């Protein structure tokens, strides 16, 4: 197990290094001089040069890569060109919106998907099953930003239960904050819940066909008892994997939803960073998101191997 974890950790580190080189290279290609952009059209060439120096844009490419990576490793992500504050500060602020939003969506998606998948699997072939499968098929096909617009139209414009966008900040209290995140979370959760419900259904159907379920039934357990005591637990393994992978997806996938609802989250920060040529913000954020995805995948792998020794063998 230790050996497995170590080799996986090594490949994690390697992936991160390669990813950082790729991101750095892509950012280098972006046209436009950030220093000139920051100072405006009327800046003197001397002023631009001085700022380039100050921003560390004049070093050689390897020098700049090393100083960027060194900074990332010590928690110093540089200073935003446009906001003129440390990127780490911006990220911390924005995480206060994006992480709760992703968790909110994940919780919604899970509490909807698991019972729905359970019902579909245990009534397989019935009208309820077909209805659920049809609904999830539709849920996957709906673009989440369009679903968000429908939610805004129904619950904000027509019923006036929620605001159409914006975020009051957690200082305004827990409830106003959660309320502002509710429609975005529902919009994000719908496609995820649809996928998860289908995974849940097929995992459960597969475990229900196993010999040990037949044994459990043979020793006198009812269908429901066999499902809840034996099948459900085993079926949850693939479901948990998908949930783990969905978290990082939700964090990144919120970019569009954050734009629909004008939420000051990470996604909006990246989007603004790109349109405003705030390269320091963009490269650090993309690196952080990639790190999050790779880390979650790594943790899921390890958790899987801890539960199931067969997976520890080298592939």
């Amino acid at each position, binding site marked *: 197990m230790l050996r497995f974890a170590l080799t996986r950790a090594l*490949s994690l580190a*390697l*992936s991160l290094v*390669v*990813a950082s080189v*790729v991101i750095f290279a*892509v950012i280098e*290609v*972006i*046209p436009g001089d950030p220093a000139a952009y920051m100072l405006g059209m009327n800046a003197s060439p001397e002023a631009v040069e001085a700022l380039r120096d100050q921003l560390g844009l004049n070093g050689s490419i390897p020098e700049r890569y090393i100083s960027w990576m060194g900074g990332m490793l010590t928690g110093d992500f540089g200073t935003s060109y446009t906001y003129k504050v440390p990127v780490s500060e911006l990220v911390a602020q924005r995480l206060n919106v994006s992480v709760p939003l992703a968790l909110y969506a994940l919780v919604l998606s899970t509490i909807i998907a698991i019972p729905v998948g359970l019902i579909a*699997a245990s009534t397989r072939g019935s009208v309820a099953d077909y209805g659920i499968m049809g609904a999830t*098929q*539709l849920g*996957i*096909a*709906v*673009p989440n*930003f*369009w679903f968000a*617009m*429908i939610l*805004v*139209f129904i619950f904000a*414009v027509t019923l006036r239960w929620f605001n159409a966008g914006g975020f009051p900040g957690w200082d305004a209290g827990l409830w106003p904050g959660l309320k502002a995140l509710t429609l975005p979370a529902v919009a994000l959760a719908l496609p995820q819940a649809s996928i998860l419900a*289908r*995974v849940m*259904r*097929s995992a459960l*159907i*597969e475990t229900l*066909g196993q010999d040990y379920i037949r044994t459990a039934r043979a020793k006198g357990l009812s269908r429901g008892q066999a499902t809840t005591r034996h099948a459900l637990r085993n079926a949850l393994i693939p479901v948990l994997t998908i949930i783990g992978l969905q978290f*990082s*997806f939700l*964090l*990144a*996938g919120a*970019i*569009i939803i954050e*734009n*629909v609802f004008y939420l000051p989250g990470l996604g909006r920060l*990246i*989007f603004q960073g*790109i*349109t405003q040529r705030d390269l320091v913000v*963009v490269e650090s954020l*993309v690196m952080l*998101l*990639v790190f999050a*995805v*790779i880390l979650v*995948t790594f943790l899921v792998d390890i958790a899987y191997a801890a539960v199931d020794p067969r997976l520890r063998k080298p592939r």
Partner: protein
Amino acid sequence: MKVPATLIFGVILSAFFVLVALLSFVWTPHDVAALNIADKMQAPSATYWLGTDHFGRDTLSMLMVGARTSIAVAIVAVGIGIVIGVPLGLAAAANRGSLIDEIIMRGNDLVFAFPSLVIAILITAVFGPSAVNAILAIGIFNIPVFARVTRGGALSLWTLDYILAARVAGKGRLRISAEHILPNILNLLIVQGTIQFSLGILAEAALSYIGLGAQPPTPSWGRMLSEAQTMIYTAPRLALWPGLAIVAMVLGLNLMGDGLRDLTDPRLRRGRA
């Protein structure tokens, strides 16, 4: 062999949009490029079946040309995935466990690790927003998908007797991959292609919604939605039609993909996701 009802429904739905897109090359009810301010924000009528937008453009014509944009972007993006991904997958499977295999598969993992939307935004931001860059951004993420499916399908074939026979007969790995492996994984590739096609439609809609896809005046469903968003208080119908078009097209493709999978692999008919 019984053809699944979902497949028939999916094919009809998908074919409908393809035909509409083709039709838009020769005929649309109105000119989508012409701005007709006098007729702006019209409700549906005999002249404008689905009404007009804030520039007086006919919604139905915009939808028809939008279908063309979506389908073109998705087809080329899937094409990129197939043309690059499939040979990579075949090479990885033919040299199983070798350095080539390892490099290809780790490269795949790496691309998967990038949040696709973030990279799509990055690419379009670097090279400027356009339909071509949207295609590239979506296409890059299709490469590892096809490489993985191809490798998985090919690996199981390489263990079979008829492949061994071909090797004994003196055929090289390259020839076996092309003559025996590829034709036998075509069904897998078609199913995956359908799924990636539908994901491509969704991705194109999302990119053009945030302004990074096809640029004006080319109509696209995503941008129609972003324009409609500002008018949702006054004309919610403008947000209705492009959304329904995306849902119907994606639904059709997904049903087609599921149906094709059922048809080609009956073992999956039980408990598929």
